């Protein structure tokens, strides 16, 4: 695919605004196996993309956005980075943002977390607090704070990858994450008598 790129590159400027209509449909240049490889990509990453979207906007909006995300991925198949997940989540995030108003997404996400809080049982391993309690506290966070914690804790993303998803610098990410942790800690402090966890909250390394 990269080759065609060169084939068509004439170094000639094209007008704006357009979304740069491709000169040559690259499907003609793709290997027959590309559909297969794309299906593998879908299988490998769909669950995480969908989960992320559900945490952002509830299940109903998430399924449509996940579908759209993979349409975009197919259109850009061949340009995908070696580890495509942060890229996919970044696309998913944009799809969601462009498809639904913030208030709609926010309410759906809160509802989703409340649902999880009602259906999730047990304590965290440390035994200091109910899982449902944590989920309720996360539900009360601002959208932005919640997202940072979900990417970090539920998707186990490195700061670098999470920053890529969010489209911000790593430094900015750390600052925001620090604040998000602090605000969640404050909420848990208000909700729980177990303060030891909260007290140990500190700035990130």
């Amino acid at each position: 695919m990269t080759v065609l790129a060169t084939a068509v590159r004439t170094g000639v400027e094209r007008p704006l605004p357009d979304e740069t209509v491709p000169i040559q449909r690259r499907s003609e240049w793709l290997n027959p196996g590309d559909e297969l490889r794309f299906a593998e990509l879908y299988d490998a990453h769909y669950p995480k993309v969908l989960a992320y979207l559900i945490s952002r906007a509830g299940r109903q909006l998430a399924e449509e956005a996940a579908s759209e995300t993979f349409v975009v991925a197919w259109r850009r198949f061949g340009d995908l980075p070696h580890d495509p997940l942060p890229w996919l989540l970044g696309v998913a995030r944009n799809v969601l943002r462009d498809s639904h108003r913030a208030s709609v997404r926010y309410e759906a996400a809160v509802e989703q977390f409340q649902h999880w809080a009602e259906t999730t049982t047990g304590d965290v391993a440390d035994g200091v607090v109910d899982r449902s309690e944590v989920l309720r506290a996360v539900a009360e966070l601002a959208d932005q704070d919640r997202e940072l914690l979900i990417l970090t804790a539920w998707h186990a993303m490195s700061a670098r990858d999470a920053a890529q998803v969010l489209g911000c610098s790593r430094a900015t990410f750390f600052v925001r994450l620090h604040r998000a942790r602090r605000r969640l800690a404050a909420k848990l402090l208000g909700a729980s008598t177990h303060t030891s966890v909260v007290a140990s909250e500190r700035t990130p390394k």
Partner: protein
Amino acid sequence: MKHPIDRLVEQSRPDDYTQPPDADRRDRDLARAFAVPAGTGARRRRSVRPVAFVVAGLATCSVAAAIAIPLLNNPGSSNLEATPTTPTASPRAAAVRSVLFEAAAAAAGTTAPNSARYWHHSSLDISVEREAAGPALIEQRRTVDLWLPRDDAGASWSISQFQGARALTGGGDRWRVAVGAPCPKPGAAKPCWTTKEVTSRAGAPDKQRIETVAKPFAIGSTNLSVAELGRLPDNPAELKTKLLALSQPSPGDPNATLFETTSALINRLPTTPAVRAAAFQLLAGIPGVQLLPKTSDALGRPGTAVALTTDHGPAGAHETRLIFDPQSGKPLAYEARIVRPGTAWPGLPPGTRYLAELTKTTGWTTATP
């Protein structure tokens, strides 16, 4: 060690947080994706509006070898004093004309055997960009070989190979560079891209046989087939009119546009010797073109160059040059350098040669890979 708050959140994750799609949804999603051709996504833009840049053509490789051409027009500023390499001869039009006409005559004299069915272009593309979120200036190299049928019928071949990256300044042994990433919707307000890691290690060659390719080239907004390129006028005045027409609508400096398209015709597009000769003559008539009688390309190959500096206002100014062998009229390279940094080339200091398209062989052949 995990932050205690992160650990709390992690352990509260619902048990069914991630689930595979059901079969129906999977089928629907894949069918929906495959309904659009792959590779039709938005291309990477290298600037922010209103200084709009379009990667010319379809540079899918991260080697942003695609020329990012500023669309801001700033006519009348083609002759900047601060060219990165001051031409060694006075830019007298007569000298430019003399050299280019000689090259034109040489180019016109070449012939292609009638049996040569394929246009074969073999090049090394070098690009330089600032490391994403880092200090290093990263150079990336890629070789590309293309075979396209003269009559637009039959298969084409391409072999592309990443030849590795290196830091020109800043050191390190692996770097992240920006790669194209989609904006989810056409017209999305901000460019969105991602990064990928490159190292000094070369990639494997990627050989592809392509059954049909209708119009693989573009001049301006017009797509052209190999045969259509072959039918371009071989008279300089008519060629100029035609190239400007093909480039419409173009908000750019027409001189820069002409220099760009003409250089492409000489350096890497399939054309006839007569069109190539006309292109050389056309170059001689572009105001502001300067002559570098003795220079060399990024591979150190000696040649003569014609150069044009274009000022794009806040986007910066760049110099583009076509390097060729004046005796044979054969192209050596097309290169671009920063004259004055601006928003178009973030992080690149003046004088940086941010693009070199080095032609190894180009011409008509009977052989295919």
